[in-house]
């Protein structure tokens, strides 16, 4: 019997589904054991009526339709997997939690530079109502496994993670992730843990053999789960943290604050002023919580005082 799977992208960019296609010819071997029953992004079928073994849900819940779809589909599946960083942590769309819903709607429909909406009409007919905040999928439906990554295809040569995930599912084993951090998989040479300032990407010329963080470039490696084989670092691009926090860490941003403070120079000669350190980031929350704000300890901007 083949393992029957369903794919659905909620508030998503379809990158996670494309990541599965990025298995290339390997997908042919997998399809000997897998049957894709439902995947509106890839196939024509628009409604799932039968039960499936595994449901891969990607994207975030941005409106009521997403929420209902997540519940309806997960009831038809034995195993539900939050597939990708949006589903696992809230992802990039989760940064919308830094604004009130009203601000978001006004920006999108009224004030963007290319908007021509003189009547100031906000969409209200035939569109599902927006959810106030982005939450990780596990707060909507029971999730058996989180597969992080933006998208989770990553791996230097093959889509290692996805292949391994399917293999574990086919063998009836629990799906496990690496317990290490990106730094453990990174080839760049680490020497002295001391920085004088945080450089923005594009400032100066990075040394292609040394740890980028030690050179002052912001790299989320120390606070990010391994599994991607440090693919970005292999191409000399700093880690942005898409794999989310490592094992036993809930708050990726807090861990990164800790890591940066630990390597900011404190000796007389190169001393980094604490107040200046905070100003070296253009956008602290957006940088440190790029993919994980909705699943962090303080998961949204505190907009108003709660009246008691």
């Amino acid at each position, binding site marked *: 019997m083949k393992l029957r799977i369903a794919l659905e992208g909620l508030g998503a960019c379809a990158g996670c589904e494309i990541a599965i296609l990025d298995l290339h010819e390997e997908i042919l071997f997998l399809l000997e054991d897998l049957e894709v029953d439902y995947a509106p992004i890839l196939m024509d079928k628009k409604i799932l009526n039968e039960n499936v073994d595994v449901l891969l849900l990607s994207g975030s819940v941005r409106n009521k339709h997403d929420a209902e779809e997540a519940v309806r589909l997960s009831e038809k599946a034995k195993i539900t997997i939050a597939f990708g960083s949006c589903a696992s942590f809230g992802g990039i769309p989760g940064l919308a939690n830094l604004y009130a819903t009203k601000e978001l709607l006004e920006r999108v429909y009224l004030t963007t530079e290319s908007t021509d909406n003189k009547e100031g009409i906000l969409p209200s007919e035939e569109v599902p109502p927006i959810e106030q905040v982005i939450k990780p999928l596990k707060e909507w439906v029971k999730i058996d496994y989180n597969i992080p990554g933006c998208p989770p295809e990553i791996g230097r040569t093959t889509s290692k993670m996805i292949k391994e995930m399917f293999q574990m599912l086919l063998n009836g084993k629990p799906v496990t992730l690496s317990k290490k951090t990106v730094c453990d998989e990174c080839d760049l040479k680490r020497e002295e843990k001391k920085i004088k300032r945080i450089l923005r990407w594009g400032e100066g010329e990075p040394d292609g053999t040394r740890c980028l963080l030690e050179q002052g470039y912001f790299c989320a490696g120390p606070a990010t789960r391994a599994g991607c084989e440090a693919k970005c670092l292999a191409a000399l691009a700093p880690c942005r943290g898409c794999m989310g926090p490592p094992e036993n860490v809930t708050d990726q941003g807090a861990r990164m604050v800790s890591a940066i403070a630990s390597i900011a120079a404190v000796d007389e000669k190169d001393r980094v002023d604490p107040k200046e350190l905070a100003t070296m980031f253009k956008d*602290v929350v957006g940088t440190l919580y790029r993919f994980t704000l909705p699943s962090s300890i303080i998961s949204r901007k505190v907009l108003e005082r709660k009246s008691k």
Partner: protein
Amino acid sequence: MLGKFEPYIVGFLCNWCGYAGADLAGTSRIQYPPNLRAIRLMCSGRVDPAFILTALKRGADGVLVVGCHPGDCHYINGNLRTERRVALLKKMLSDLGLDDRRVRLEWISASEGQRFAVVVKEFVEEMRALGPNPLEGDMHET
């Protein structure tokens, strides 16, 4: 909680200076407000930003971190690491819409019992003026 608002303060005190300073304040019978719940750590450098965020998330109105004066740290520079950690965290908190005065870092040595009392008193008054933590929490109910 009924009646007047009493700020709930969580204190992370280092074993060698902050906690010893608090101890001295106690043994010297110096009066200070009872709003502080002290947690002793070996070094202020042990204060993970996640501890502070968790305290705030659970409704603490203020978080006080106390370490040794610069140069006095029992572990050489743990307090300086914390200074940087707190500075970065404060920036993060204000971006997240919380008043960054809710987190305060102070250097208090083992001989400064009086100063400890003054700092706690000041901080409690500051938090009382600032009002309750807007985050949902469970601390005030207990």
